[in-house]
């Protein structure tokens, strides 16, 4: 029964879908897959240990944490907030787009901003609401739409630009997984092929946000 090997995939899918403990789910999936393919407990533990050691590079981003901790305790986020709050006299869509650009550029340098908590709620959302209500008061529905678009803009910038940073966990995971699967690739080549998507995202989301303003000018 070689289909039994697929048990690990089933465990991962169901475990994540039902929000079970993620670490335990992954370890269980690894062990189940090994056992189902006929390995002994000993060899499963052996390959689990060897696989983990061979993939230590994925966790290299831990090395960047002390530096980030130091600049954070010395006001890196406050400096970013001070910079962004200088944006004035712009439409909601333009505010979103400037934030999108900042988010993509900081992502590329591995500057992790907890966007939703630090910027969207306290800064970008109120700024966009103020900008959109210059001509007319906003309806409840419009307020909700602005909040949603602000949050969405943070996710767009964050997701599609994070792989521009060579020491991001995503890039390291890809390089290491491809090596495990027998097709090694360099981290720089992954960064290189992540550039088109980051640029296209900026153009498309930029256009999407510019059109967002129309509903407030009627």
């Amino acid at each position: 029964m070689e289909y039994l090997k697929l048990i690990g995939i089933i465990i991962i899918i169901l475990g994540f879908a039902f929000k079970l403990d993620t670490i335990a789910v992954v370890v269980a999936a690894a062990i189940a897959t090994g056992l189902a393919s006929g390995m002994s407990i000993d060899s499963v533990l052996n390959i689990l240990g060897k696989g983990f050691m061979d993939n230590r590079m994925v966790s290299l981003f831990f090395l960047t944490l002390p530096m980030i901790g130091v600049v954070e305790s010395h006001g890196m986020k406050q400096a970013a907030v001070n910079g962004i709050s200088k944006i004035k006299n712009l439409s909601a869509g333009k505010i979103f787009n400037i934030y999108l650009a900042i988010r993509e550029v900081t992502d590329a340098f591995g500057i992790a901003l907890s966007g939703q908590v630090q910027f969207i709620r306290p800064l970008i959302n109120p700024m966009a609401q103020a900008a959109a209500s210059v001509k007319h008061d906003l309806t409840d529905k419009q307020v909700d739409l602005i909040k949603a678009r602000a949050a969405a803009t943070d996710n767009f910038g964050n997701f599609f630009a994070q792989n521009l940073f060579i020491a991001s966990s995503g890039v390291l995971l890809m390089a290491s997984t491809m090596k495990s699967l027998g097709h090694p690739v360099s981290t720089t080549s992954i960064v290189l092929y992540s550039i088109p998507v980051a640029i296209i995202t900026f153009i498309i989301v930029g256009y999407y946000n510019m059109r967002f303003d129309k509903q407030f000018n009627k």
Partner: protein
Amino acid sequence: MSVNNILEIFYILMGIIMIFASIESFRDKENSARIGTGLFWLILGIIFAVGKYLPNVVIGLLIVLIGILSLMKQIKVGKIKEVNKEIAERSAKKLGGWLFFPSVVLAILSILISEFTNLGGQVGIGIASVVALILAMIISKADAKTTYHDSERMVRSVGTAGVLPQLLATLGVIFTASGVGDVTAKTISGIFPVGNHLLGVVLYCVAMVIFTMIMGNAFAAFAVITAGIGVPFIVAQGGNAAVVAAIGMTAGYCGTLMTPMAANFNSLPVALMEMKDNLGVIKQQVPIALTMLVIQIILMYFLAF
């Protein structure tokens, strides 16, 4: 000194940082799971610092132990001293843009080392991290004690999520060793023919989206779907592996944008901003997610082959 030996030094450094996190987790009296959390960081610290000298079976057992600790809810972030807002505010006024300088140096220096020396990308990240840290300490005039606490604070706040990517990559190793990719490829090729490049790309990208939506985690989907579809249907047909990985992952993010399973991104803002529509954020994201999916399928097809 070979590249691997240099890299080993950086792994030892990582182990030491994790042991800092372990010490402070043990000392965190307010954490109901302080023993488990301290053990978690201690185990990881040992694996990174001296794992090279341990038999693989022992490492395997330690990982199972981490799994059990996590399952028993014995690993918690605990109470982390927050950044002192007053000091941060004052320092931000004084230093301004310079606070971003170490991050810029880190990103650029690691690429330069990786491209223009034969040390490779990983050693590049290691050297650049150390240089950036020293720069950050000079710019902010942080002493050793502050740096110690900033380090343990950052590591502890990452929590178990920090080790998940490496565990998923390890799962990839086991999938490969067990031949999971071959079985899925054989199953799927009973329905879809292997060898049609465009079909392979569509299948891989769409599967990344669907599985990410179900699991709420693109990293987990990546390990599974790349082994099962990406490699046999695209890379083995001559597709460029770096293109497949890079665009495959961001195709998965299109799934993250469309699923309530990704609560951190799609539900957290709803709660933070007290929005009325629970799916409001997702509704704003669906048009972009679908557009980006189509664009990425086209990009992957033309860049990979």
